[in-house]
């Protein structure tokens, strides 16, 4: 099977600083590739290059066999791009926004209106066609952003942080919409820094850090990279004295990450580790607010690979 997207050794430099350092990946029909990484990891730069908005310093990007640089317009017709920012015009109604973008894709008026109505209904936005975009809620704006990306019936969808800033219910409804698009055999690249989003939606996840893909596999395979470890999350209302020394004294803890008032410990033996940690915290005048023992997540994979958290 031919890939919908093929990225080969992509490098992008801004004033001598490398934003992408040799990225390669492939995405196939009906597949969601999650790009997981913190802000500045290079996810948006990669998306912009695939969309043909910016030119790479070197490397190659093919979409459905077309080179994005040489056949930019042909590629643009096949891509639906939903950037991180809201791309709506506040003084235009929902339908006027849709018709404007349809015009950019050279879709005739009648056909554009039909498609717009269908997509708005599909994303739960029917009934607000005549509402000015500025009067929509944040969730509706996000869905309209996505609706705009679907107007040209794309074979490849580039979704850059499509749920950022949304409440859990709205986020869930956007996820459902993305899942349905996958069922329509669309290839989707989903950039996110929410690990649960990548975990829930992606067939494969590319973990990006500082312009590189540090791991690329299915979420399950990636989580196995952490090993047969459990994660113990401790949240303090008062940090114990000499926390580093305290945690170092627990033999069964293989690794720990301290962030603000929170510590994540990785251990193969949570039954032994947990009582030891609790008693040491109390001895050192610490106060615990919450304890959670859980399976490793993609964030834990990221931590293992990069030594730092996602945010």
């Amino acid at each position, binding site marked *: 099977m031919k890939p919908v997207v093929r990225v080969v050794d992509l490098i992008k430099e801004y004033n001598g600083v490398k934003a992408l350092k040799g990225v390669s990946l492939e995405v196939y029909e009906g597949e969601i590739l999650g790009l997981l990484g913190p802000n500045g990891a290079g996810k948006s730069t990669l998306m912009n290059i695939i969309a043909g908005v*910016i030119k790479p310093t070197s490397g190659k990007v093919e979409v459905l066999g077309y080179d994005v640089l040489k056949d930019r317009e042909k590629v643009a017709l096949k891509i639906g791009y939903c950037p991180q920012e809201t791309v709506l015009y506040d003084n235009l109604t929902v339908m006027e926004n849709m018709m404007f973008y349809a015009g950019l894709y050279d879709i005739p008026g009648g056909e554009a209106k039909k498609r717009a109505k269908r997509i708005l209904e599909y994303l739960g936005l029917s009934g607000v066609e005549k509402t000015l975009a500025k009067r929509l809620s944040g969730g509706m704006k996000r869905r309209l952003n996505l609706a705009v990306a679907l107007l040209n019936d794309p074979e490849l969808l580039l979704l850059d942080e499509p749920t950022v800033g949304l409440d859990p219910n709205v986020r869930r409804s956007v996820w459902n919409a993305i899942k349905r698009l996958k069922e329509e055999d669309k290839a989707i690249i989903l950039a996110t820094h929410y690990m649960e989003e990548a975990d829930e939606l992606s067939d494969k996840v590319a973990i990006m850090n500082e312009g590189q893909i540090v791991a690329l596999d299915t979420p399950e395979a990636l989580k196995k990279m952490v090993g047969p470890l459990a994660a113990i999350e401790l949240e303090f209302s008062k940090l114990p004295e000499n926390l580093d020394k305290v945690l170092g004294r627990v033999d069964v803890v293989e690794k720990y990450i301290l962030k603000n008032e929170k510590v994540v410990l990785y251990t193969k033996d949570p039954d032994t580790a947990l009582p030891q940690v609790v008693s040491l915290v109390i001895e050192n005048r610490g106060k615990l607010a919450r304890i959670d023992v859980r399976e490793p997540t993609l964030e834990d994979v990221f931590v293992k690979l990069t030594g730092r958290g996602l945010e």
Partner: protein
Amino acid sequence: MKLRAILSIAKKGVLDTLRDPAAVFWIVVFPIFWLALMSALWAGGSSKPLILEVGVVYEDTGISKYPLNATLMVNIMSKIEVNTTKIFEVKVFNSTENALNKLKAGELDAVIVFPEGFSQNMTYGFTTRAKIYVSAADIQKKQIIEAMLSSFIVEFSKHLALVRAQIFYNKAAVIINRFTGNMSSYILPLIKEFIKGLAVPLEAEFNEVSPKSIATRAGIIGWYTIGMIGVEYLFIGIIGGIVIVVEEREKKTLKRLLAAPITPWDLLIGGTLAVLFSELISTVTCTAFGTLVLGGKIYWNPLNPSHWLLVYIMLLVALMTIGIGLILSLGAKTVKSANVLASMVTFPLMFLAGIIIPKWILPSYMRTIADAFPVTVGLDVVRQIAVFNKPVEALALQTVYLTLTTTATYVAGIYIYKHRLNKFIEE
């Protein structure tokens, strides 16, 4: 280039503008308000002449003894009228000091002091002198006061000279009659004219002539209507030109637009069309209000093919202002800074480039700027056709000049647009 994409971009720009109350104010309300103001200021009917308040001091104690005296002069002065308005308001003071104090306090425009012997000298035919003090509070008003008083004194002197000449002639005629006998009927008229010529060696007649088409109120309003259209083009075109470049960046829609199968050309042409549409609305507003409401006269005959040159010229002026805006976009990154920058450029041009203030009242160096500024050249061509009803053949040179400068400006604007766009994309 794709027509549907270009029209979509233009339509989006138009809708965005029409739903922005501030934009509607500047495009529709502002020109109506300004035209009404201009009409009231410059074409609001007959203006009244300047009235001077003049203080008079009689230091001359011999007034009652002589038939030609200072009060005669003051009486004549206080009766002089321009368009049925008396232009000298005379107040008599008992001392020079009191009068000068009032002058210094700004309560008088001038003080005339008639010194001792004034009436005697006047009656006996000697040179007589008065002292005149003029308020120098305002340099322009001072010039006007001096000119008005000088004119009066010249006229009065002429009158006095003629009276004296008549007296002299009457006495001389008796003697000449005695020596010339029958010849006197030939000689006396010649001598009379000669004496009159000695008294008044030169006479000039001043007549006011206004340019044919703006001599009327309708013509003046027509002139200002074209000026107002020019002001609107400056504002809308320059701001619009800058906004074409910076707005999509500021709204963060630029990258999304460029991910669509369009080119920067489509964006530029669509944006330009949207600005042209706003300028068209303003043109229609100004023309309709200026002609239908204020009664201005604008010659426009759609059946006359040469009148279509107006459309071409207006289009060039509009493109010129957009081109200036594109170039100025080098100095702006946001719509707000675009507004500030455009105002900084537009306001001085509006007043100093012969657009709303006639070129002939500008200082000579500003007139040079106005003569070279393509927008003014374009508006002058429009005025020549639409206000002065001049044949278009006489305007070929200006039209070629405007075509070349507009092309150069817009091409430079395109170059800067592409440069800015690339910079914004890479940000």
